[in-house]
């Protein structure tokens, strides 16, 4: 199974996403922002980082990168896409996911081991978790507050499209403790915390994050 990892100028967790894919048993394929070609990958991860320095707005400039053209089309057509942190911001800026991510309510960058509840196992990236499963993965962001109008959020809740919720502290002021969401089809997932940093006992707080990558691989095999 070939899973692409896009590198934008300023992407930082791209190597880590690739490592997580390999540990989960997949083949990681480097995709370059300036290359408008997905090279036939079976799924794509938009990694964390500060694309274009996150100047202006996080993800605002990356959204216009050449690779995003084919990516948006493919995602609309059902290609599984996981946006982590900066990747989540890119997905929102590209309107593949509703809402937006704004400055943390406390105005500080925050890096912490975050408890989450998996709210939906119906997506391409969460199928190997149990409904309601609690996990701990790193969270690190300065603009991670999820916002959208009430109608949008109610719809997300109603359709079970809230993928993960913060437990304990809400680290950034996200509305309704939302840590991740998915599109109607469940192939595109945006997540503020970093599962790719919880795949090895030695370097992560847990290995709870591995499930996102085993989910997609399992799904692709079955598909």
């Amino acid at each position, binding site marked *: 199974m070939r899973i692409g990892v896009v590198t934008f100028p*300023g992407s930082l967790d791209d190597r880590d996403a690739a490592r997580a894919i390999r540990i989960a048993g997949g083949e990681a394929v480097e995709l370059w922002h300036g290359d408008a070609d997905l090279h036939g990958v079976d799924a794509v991860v938009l990694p*964390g980082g500060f694309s274009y320095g996150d100047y202006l707005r996080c993800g605002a400039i990356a959204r216009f990168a050449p690779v995003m053209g084919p990516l948006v089309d493919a995602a609309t057509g059902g290609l599984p896409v996981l946006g982590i942190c900066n990747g989540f911001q890119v997905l929102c800026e590209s309107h593949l996911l509703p809402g937006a991510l704004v400055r943390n309510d406390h105005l500080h960058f925050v890096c912490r081991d975050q408890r989450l509840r998996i709210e939906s196992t119906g997506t391409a990236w969460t199928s190997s978790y149990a409904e309601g499963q609690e996990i701990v993965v790193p969270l690190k962001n300065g603009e991670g507050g999820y916002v959208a109008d009430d109608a949008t959020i109610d719809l997300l809740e109603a359709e079970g499209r809230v993928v993960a919720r913060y437990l304990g502290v809400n680290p950034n002021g996200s509305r309704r403790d939302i840590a991740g969401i998915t599109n109607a089809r469940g192939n595109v997932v945006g997540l503020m915390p970093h599962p790719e940093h919880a795949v090895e006992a030695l370097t992560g707080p847990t290995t709870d994050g591995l499930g996102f990558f085993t989910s997609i691989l399992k799904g692709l095999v079955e598909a």
Partner: protein
Amino acid sequence: MSPLTPARKPDTVADAIAEPDTEQPYAELGLKPDEYVRIREILGRRPTSAELAMYSVMWSEHCSYKSSKVHLRQFGDKKPETDVLLVGIGENAGVVDIGAGWAVTFKVESHNHPSYVEPYQGAATGIGGIVRDILSMGARPVAVMDPLRFGAADHPDTRRVLPGVVAGIGGYGNCLGLPNIGGEVVFDASYQGNPLVNALCIGTMRHEDIHLASAKGVGNLVILYGAKTGGDGIGGVSVLASETFDEGGPTKRPAVQVGDPFMEKLLIECTLEVLHAGLVEGIQDLGGAGISCATSELASNGEGGMHVRLDAVPLRDATLTPEEILMSESQERMCAVVTPEKVEAFLAICRKWDVTADVIGEVTDSGRLVIEWHGEVIVDVPPRTVAHDGPVYDRPLARPEWQDALQAATADTLPRPTTAVELRDTVLTLVGSPNLASKTWITSQYDRYVLGNTVLAQPEDAGMVRVDEESGLGVAVSTDCNGRFAKLDPYNGAKLALAESYRNVAATGAAPLAVTNCLNFGSPEDPAVMWQFSQAVTGLADGCLELGIPVTGGNVSFYNQTGDVAILPTPVVGVLGVIDDVALRTPMAFTTEGDVVLVLGETRDELSGSEWAHVVHGHLGGLPPTVDLGAERALAELLVEASRASLVTAAHDVSDAGIAQALVEMAMRADVGARVDLPVGADPFVFLLSESTARAVVTVAPARLAELELRAAAHGVPVTRIGAVTAAGDDLQVQGAWGESLAWTLAELHATADATLPALFG
């Protein structure tokens, strides 16, 4: 703007010959009259204003080390027998062999004065500068650390400086994608008008990837790449770091340098790609003194000559004069020497990364650094005289007359707790005091996970990163300095800083290998400060010789004082250790109920200069704890051996606030309690709060206790069994304090330790 004539027509070498008597603003540029005279002697004429600009920044204290050179020599003279040093002092950073073909480079630098003027940008560009130093050795930067010192925690100006500095370090380092794996946060009134912002970076590379800053090969081209040159920070670091602040704050306010971490990230990836493609003969970062430094250092380290067309330098501000271009400290710039046939490939890679790059000159063997400005020669100098043959001062030193009185006023007479209740409250007071309280409010603003190789990070004794993902080979680094000890006795204070850093690295299971340092002191023009400096350098050099680990590089920061009041002498020492398999690292947390808790090392009645004397009595006097580097070495060998054999389940070094604070931190780390029985005959207060050196607290499974005691005996390390780890959530109990027992709940320890910084800065 700079006091330099912004004349349309530049001051050429021809002018300098034709008009020998032109008045020159050398004093405004920080040059002393005799230094100006020497420049005239070197050139046999007056310098052009461009030459004057170059000499003034390169001969500044920061760039020339004119006051420290004569002392720093000891690091070379007393270098221990070692085969780990691949590149020594004198390059941008030293390089150490960690085996299996891997090399590590690490270095700490100061950005103290810029961070006082503009905390966010000052600290941010401090990170940027040290990262480029590491990059210029050919290494991939893999982690940063930030030893910080501020004035009184509750002083209003600390509220201005600290949050800005922390946000700047995080803002730059996080955006760069470098994990922050440790540092220091120390509060002391002496830093009020002069906070210390030191930044350390670690880089890794294969042996064959090591590069040096030299312009080899006549006819090779000099390429300047990265950010465009602007008017920011003209003479910034060099001038700012080379003068004292008066009560009113900085006297000179050069345009502050603003960092662009995104550009630096591109610079890193672009630089590593051109290096690995074999396109580079020599490379140099642009830091203090900008183009003046890069061109003169590259030239004098290579064929000896260089011809530069300054008008080829891409500018952000077209109105800059040539003098300003030479002095500008615009960030995120690098300089590379490339053979003509490889230039196109080099530029192509820069285009891929969207990095501006221009050929600005070529290497010659003329022995001269010649700089043209639109066809006219404005600089023609022997590059060595700019880069290396600056003035050298053997400044007068004098042991301060107050030193004896200070050492006589020991802490022995201070009232000590005499009941279990008093002792319990004293420990709690210390746990919540700013220097010991949890630093999470600060460190949670730093990304410690990025790159996915962080094995240990704050609050562990040392940061540890995996270097080789296959073999698990890794390195650990710690930085330490107790400025109060250094004030009481600068010679032993420096040794104590080394000992603590060395012990912290060993506690994680890494074998100490090499040393870097950042020597933060007051004005070298004050004989008392110069005495402190020479004592500290001698102590550190002697200590490194005794421990058998070489100094690989470092940095000196003088003029850290307000008016004529100097900061505590602060020789920050960084020790790097290597561990064959990071899976064997030793963390600090209590984890397993039933594990035996042991103290390694000997506890004496040593409380002068201690955290207790400082926090409870506001007292500083006496002599610091005795240094016993032999004992430190034995302890370190035992700790490393224990980790190799997976013998201990936890280890934590004992320093500030002694065994009490060590136990508290080990319990709070994973919220697991312990029951401790004070050794019979031991004074409860001394046992818990003395700061005797060469000690650590470890835990071991009962089944392996005998083995540990055997190995300890073999190394001659005293072992004291003091208790056992209890269950998750249990209290920390201490029994046998004057017949009574005391306990702290984890909840109250957290409430006390975690509340302090948020209350002050949140």
